């Protein structure tokens, strides 16, 4: 790892100032992606701005029909939060399947969202739930926020501060884990709620997390595993690599969608 300057601001305003002053500075929260990337020298920031001391980015609360998750909320906290378990149990369960215990004890929802790894779990859930990503300067709907593999609507130096998630009537998740790395090969999150019937897919898409709109239409007409069983994904839209071909991932999306609907009940 190359060396860098280290800053630990205690407010969002100070963090934004530090990041604005230096375009080569990087924000860190749990560091579960950034630190491995720095070790591989894939990235050479001049400074690392540690967000973990910013109290206003912490906590989970329910505001009417919306769950608000602070960006620094760790996966373990999402998995065990009483508010989330009561309102969106599928999201709590999803969090309990991310990485391993040690990753869940450090990694945060804000970090995962800002990174938008194609195999990350949350982007599919936030697309399906019609979530809104709050940053230090604006609110961005999930559909506009996630812009392909590792790409988001965030400007340089813009910080995710919270995620606003409308409470659905029903939601379910299922994923096929790579048996070695445990990363998602194909994960599907289905939800029926204020944003309508929506289906988010992770792990499989050639361009990161996406919405399976044909499945949404089928589930809107008939909320049952059978409704999506005959919907085939286009392999040309899927990612193929040493872990599985595009055809295999296309098949998995349908299987996971059926299981996700069954899990949602």
């Amino acid at each position, binding site marked *: *790892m*190359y*060396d*860098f*300057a*280290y800053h*630990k601001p205690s407010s969002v305003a100070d963090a934004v100032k530090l990041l604005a002053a230096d375009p080569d500075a990087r924000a*860190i929260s749990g*560091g*579960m992606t950034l*630190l*491995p990337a*720095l*070790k591989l020298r894939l990235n050479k920031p001049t400074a*690392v701005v*540690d967000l*973990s001391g910013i109290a206003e980015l912490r906590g989970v609360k329910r505001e009417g029909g919306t769950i608000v998750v602070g960006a620094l909320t760790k996966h*373990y906290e999402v998995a065990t939060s009483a508010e989330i378990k009561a309102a969106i149990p599928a999201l709590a369960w999803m969090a309990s399947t991310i*990485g*391993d*215990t*040690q*990753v869940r*004890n*450090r990694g945060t929802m804000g970090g995962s969202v800002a990174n938008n790894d194609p195999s990350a779990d949350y982007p599919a859930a936030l697309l399906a739930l019609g979530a809104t990503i709050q940053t230090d300067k604006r609110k961005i709907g999930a559909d506009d926020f996630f812009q392909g593999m590792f790409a988001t609507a965030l400007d340089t130096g813009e910080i995710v501060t919270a995620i606003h998630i409308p409470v659905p009537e029903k939601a379910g998740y299922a994923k096929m884990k790579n048996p070695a790395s*445990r990363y998602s090969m194909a994960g599907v999150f289905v939800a029926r709620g204020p944003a309508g019937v929506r289906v988010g897919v992770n792990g499989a898409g050639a361009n990161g997390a996406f919405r399976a709109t044909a499945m949404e239409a089928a589930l809107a007409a008939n909320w049952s595993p059978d409704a999506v069983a005959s919907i085939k994904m286009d392999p040309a839209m899927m990612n193929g690599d040493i872990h599985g071909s595009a055809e295999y991932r296309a098949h998995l999306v349908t299987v996971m969608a059926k299981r996700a609907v069954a899990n949602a009940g």
Partner: protein
Amino acid sequence: MPQVTLTVNGTKHTVEVEARTLLVELLREKLRLTGTHVGCDTSQCGACVVHMGGDSIKACTILAVQCEGADITTIEGLAKPDGTLHPMQEAFREYHALQCGFCTPGMVMSAIDLVNKHPGGLSEQEIREGLEGNLCRCTGYHNIVKAIAAAADVMQGRRSELARAAE
């Protein structure tokens, strides 16, 4: 150079480190606590697991400076000063839950966090899933799972399998 103040196994240390220094490097190279191992150095194998505020974390994937004010426990902090082993260490010995021993410190630290987070006890399946972040290339895991189940009984005040066998 940045300074970090943290508590390790009950002792407060203030150490000068480079910003890029990992917690595991601070533990091993500055504090000479070499029980915490570096296996893969890519946050996969779990040989470097320690506790930070009671939660298991991989010490190879956190900067030392991120541990300012933290309370860290390593494998060296488990046994009592008179040498009495922690019930998890005792169970690993009793059930022959290791061969080469390289993964053992991380296994023991992960196992203790796992048991502490399941006050009502653990199924075999929960133990196996709870070890997802720890790799062992010798044992095939069976004896590790048995040891953790036995230690959970002792730590949570249930009659252990050993006690039952002795009756």
